[in-house]
């Protein structure tokens, strides 16, 4: 992996890009702006950065190949980003800014509180936004402007637990989560799902501070309950390898899983072979199911930013959905009500995944309306530096 000097590579890319862009400017395509409001600095920077970079990579790709065609016209895609610093107050300002720029489609925010805080602004200004936050109240009526940008843990959790119960004989589950809103909510959802499946939950109260660096003390009591499966609810990619390593070093031999996307490189560096067998959820993340388009996306991302982030396997989709839906109904470019109408029937080909997978909006079961993108729910197993597909499921 040539990721030793990301800054140098970045600098080179920036130069290359700006040269490329000046060449493109003569094409004079009209510009379609898509917003991003999320966290790209501070302790949680990783969440937003992978998001923002996915969007920028895809936009640059589209622009380079002549623009995105809607209703016979080619558009250049411009990504307008706003760093909310994981502060809901800033997130509101970001959403206001998007409204000001006349942007109708925004990806983000990355966390529960931000997603809830921007809701009044988005609804007032007619903005569709695609948060990466799970609270159902964001997506159930009367809320109507938010579209969940990934698979929620209360959807993936049951499928994973069921699989592990049937295939690996898991009986006892332990949960552990960071003491913050998002992970705690996800843990509660996971506990409920596990109990519904008839699993024995041996630990459902254990938490850690998100800034914990050494997880041995946190895990010591959890593992004494001798679970067969340890679920890391809503774990931040940075913490996952630390938790795995600590658990293994404490002699834990059972399974470890999470319901959020992870990064193979981070697992490799942080836990090495101890991370083998770790189960997580990704998009079209594994080589077996990737299309050439996905490979190209990864390639371009790596060229632009020095290093790929596997979290982008799911985060690539939000922009794709926005653009394809607008394409399906060009009137929605200026009017999100049109967008909402289209959502119910929308269907397009998923270019990133092999087979006949489609892009469509789902969520009727969870939210009573279609307010979720259908990302292939690929459950992976980490093995020696990369992910392997365990099974693929669908959300309805």
């Amino acid at each position, binding site marked *: 992996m040539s990721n*030793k000097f*990301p*800054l140098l590579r970045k600098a080179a890319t920036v130069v290359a890009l700006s040269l490329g862009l000046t060449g493109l400017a003569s094409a004079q395509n009209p510009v379609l702006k898509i917003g991003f409001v999320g966290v*790209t*600095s*501070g*302790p*949680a*920077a*990783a969440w937003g*950065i*992978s998001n923002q970079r996915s969007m920028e990579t895809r936009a640059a790709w589209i622009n380079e190949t002549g623009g995105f065609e809607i209703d016979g016209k080619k558009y250049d895609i411009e990504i307008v980003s706003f760093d909310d610093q994981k502060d809901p107050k800033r997130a509101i300002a970001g959403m206001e800014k998007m409204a000001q720029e006349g942007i109708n489609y925004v990806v983000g925010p990355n966390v529960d509180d931000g997603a809830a805080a921007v809701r009044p602004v988005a609804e007032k200004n007619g903005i569709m936004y695609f948060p990466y936050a799970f609270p159902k109240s964001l997506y159930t009526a009367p809320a109507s402007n938010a579209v969940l940008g990934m698979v929620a843990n209360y959807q993936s959790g049951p499928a994973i637990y069921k699989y592990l119960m049937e295939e690996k004989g898991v009986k006892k589950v332990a949960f552990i989560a960071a*003491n913050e809103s998002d992970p705690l909510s996800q843990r509660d959802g996971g506990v409920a799902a596990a109990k519904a499946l008839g699993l024995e939950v041996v*630990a459902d*109260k*254990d*938490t850690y*501070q*998100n*800034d914990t*660096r*050494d997880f*041995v*003390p*946190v895990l*010591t*009591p*959890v593992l004494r309950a001798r679970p067969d499966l340890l679920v890391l609810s809503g774990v931040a*990619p*940075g*913490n996952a*390898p*630390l938790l795995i390593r600590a658990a293994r*070093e*404490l*002699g834990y031999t059972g399974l470890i899983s999470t319901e959020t996307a992870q*990064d193979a*490189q*981070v697992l490799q*560096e*942080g*836990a*090495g072979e101890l991370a083998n067998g770790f189960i997580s959820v990704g998009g079209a993340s594994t080589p077996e199911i990737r299309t050439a388009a996905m490979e190209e996306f990864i390639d371009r991302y790596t060229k632009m930013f*020095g*290093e790929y*982030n596997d979290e982008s396997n799911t985060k690539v989709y939000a922009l794709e959905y926005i653009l394809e839906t607008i394409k399906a109904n060009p009137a929605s470019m200026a009017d999100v009500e049109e967008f909402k109408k289209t959502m119910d029937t929308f269907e397009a080909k998923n270019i990133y995944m092999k087979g006949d997978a489609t892009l469509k909006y789902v969520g009727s079961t969870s939210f009573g309306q279609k307010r979720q993108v259908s990302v292939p729910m690929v459950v992976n197993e980490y093995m020696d530096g990369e992910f392997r597909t365990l099974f693929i499921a669908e959300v309805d």
Partner: protein
Amino acid sequence: MEQAIVNGLYLGSQYALIALGLTLIFALMNVLNFAHGQLYVLGGFITYVVYGQLGLPFVLALVATAVTLALVGAAIEKFLFRPVIRRSVREESTMLLAAAIAFFLDAVILLLFGEKQRGVPKIMDGLLNWDFRIVMPYDRILIGVLSIFIIVGFILYMQYSKPGRAMRALAQDRVAAQLMGVRVDRYSMIGFALGAMLAGVVGGLLVTITGVNSGIGGPISIKAFMMVMIGGAGVISGAIAGGFILGMMESVGLFYLSSYGDITYLIIFASLMVFLAIRPQGLMGKPWG
């Protein structure tokens, strides 16, 4: 229980080492260095690059880290804190400067090393397993022992070397030290460099266990503040005690209270507040630091 105590000791040795540098800088300059955690992160990344990426020996990486951080620390003192301290009306102004430096380092680190969690290969394989009552990988034991060695070395240095004695005099009473002929500027700089170096070396040591991540600087600083408060600001023995106490509280608290949910840290924080209300100078501090 044995496991909780061993965990606590290991955690405490790291914490103490982190707190040492912070308390040293506070003692010498009355500056609460908000950027301490960022220096720790910077140290971690330097070790990551030298050991993890360039593949040079770990010891060499630690030395490179120590030297770089010492230089960074000295520069921060000489070009930033010194002029501001000289000219500001209220000494709290240095807190804004420290916070700004913390932001700056955060930004630099994020740009240079990216947003991902980083780690390096284990420096040692295998683990000690005493009947599952105490399980401890060898590399943790090694790092714990190294930390304690560094702490002891630091104490000896402060106790017996000439700069160490000068710095202690400076910490006791700045004016008196000046009258006695201690070169205040010079030893402030050395002290700051030493403090930054300690922070960086801990970051370098721990990168082998817990990796490093560009976002953790702030939280590390806050934890270090807490340890320093427990022990008494500006007192070296206090910082060590504070580190071990916090480590032990976390470890034992999590062990016994985990089944009650999120209360361990609540209890630690609340008891810290109560403790300081009763004993404002911490365990060993001078009153009104």
